[in-house]
C-alpha cells in the first residue's frame, strides 16, 4: 500500500534546512513558499530518506484570489507519496520556478499549465503554448474566460 506521508511530519523534518519556507502543513498537504519551491523539491528528491524519484502529476487550480499549483510526488523505493502545493497571488504576470530540470516529465505539463491557466514557469527550456495556437487570446481554463 502506498503510504501517504503526513504533511506535518515532513514539515518537522524540513524545518532545519528551510526555515520560514513552509507556510502551512496538515495531514494531507504541505504548502510552501514560491521562492523556495525548487530547493525543497530537489531536497526531497535527493535525500535517501524521502527519495521522491517519480513525479505523478502537476496541476493548477484557479481560486479567485490566488492560483494554486499542486505537485504529487511518489517514491518507488519506499512506496510513499506526498502532496506539495504553492500559491501565486494576483491575475497577471504570475510565475513559479520550474522543476523541468529535475523531472523530465514536468516539461509538457508545465507548458500545459502556461497555455491553459497563464502561469509561466521560470527556467523552463521551451515556454510556449502547447495545445492552442500561437495567436490565441486568453487562457481558457481560468474562471473568468467564457
Amino acid at each position: 500500500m502506498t503510504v501517504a506521508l503526513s504533511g506535518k511530519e515532513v514539515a518537522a523534518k524540513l524545518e532545519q534546512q528551510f526555515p520560514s519556507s513552509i507556510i502551512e502543513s496538515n495531514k494531507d498537504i504541505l504548502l510552501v513558499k514560491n521562492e523556495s519551491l525548487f530547493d525543497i523539491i530537489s531536497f526531497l528528491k535527493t535525500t535517501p530518506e524521502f527519495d521522491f524519484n517519480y513525479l505523478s502529476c502537476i496541476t493548477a487550480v484557479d481560486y479567485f484570489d490566488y492560483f494554486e499549483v499542486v505537485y504529487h510526488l511518489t517514491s518507488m523505493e519506499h512506496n510513499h507519496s506526498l502532496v506539495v502545493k504553492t500559491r501565486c497571488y494576483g491575475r497577471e504576470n504570475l510565475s513559479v520556478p520550474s522543476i523541468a530540470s529535475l523531472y523530465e516529465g514536468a516539461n509538457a505539463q508545465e507548458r500545459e499549465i502556461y497555455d491553459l491557466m497563464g502561469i509561466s514557469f521560470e527556467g523552463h527550456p521551451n515556454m510556449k503554448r502547447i495545445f492552442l495556437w500561437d495567436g490565441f487570446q486568453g487562457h481558457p481554463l481560468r474562471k473568468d474566460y467564457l
Partner: protein
Amino acid sequence: MEIDRAREYIYADTELDSVEGQVIEELKANSQEIIPDPDQWLEEEPEQNILLTTVDWVINWGRRSSPWVSLCFPACCAFEFIAAMGPRFDISRFGMEILRASPRQADLMITAGTLTWKMAPNIKRVYNQMAEPKWVIAMGACAISGGIFRSSYNVVPGYNHIIPVDVYVPGCPPRPEALIYGIQMLQEKIAKRKNLAQKG
C-alpha cells in the same frame, strides 16, 4: 554529425508557429457560415437520351463500386471505421478495403472524429488536394454538429463549416452497420450523377 544550434534554418520554429496561428485565425473568421449541402440531385429528372444514359450508367457503376477512402481519422469514430474494415463487417465487399494515404488517389473522405480549429486548415488542404469527383461522408455526432463537445472553445461545430458534406451518418459512434448504410446511400447518389450532360 554535430548540429550547430546557432545556425539559423530557413524558417525558425517560432516563425512557423506564428504563421500557423495566423492561418488558423483567418480560417476561423471566414468559416462562421455553413456551406450548403450539394443535394440538387434529389429533385433532378431522369435523362431521356438512351446512348448517353448507357454510357453514364457504365461510368457511374465504375465509380460507385470502388470508392477509395482518404485518411481523415482524428478521434473515436475512427475505431468504428476500422471495425467496419475488419473481418466481421467487411467493407471490402463494397470495393473499399484500400485506405489511400495520398489524397490525390482517393475520392471519398469519411470524416471520423471531432474537428478542432487547430486541425481545420489541414483538413481543408487535404480536401482541396483530392481530385474531382469527390464526396464526403460526415460520420458521427461530432462531425455533424460538434456533438457532445459543441460548446467548447476549440471545436468546430460540424464539418460543413469547412467542406461541403454529402451524407450525414448519426451516432456516437455510429455502428458499422449504420456506416455501411450511409455508404449505400452515397452509392445511390453516385448512380444518379450526370457525366455527359448536354449543354443548351
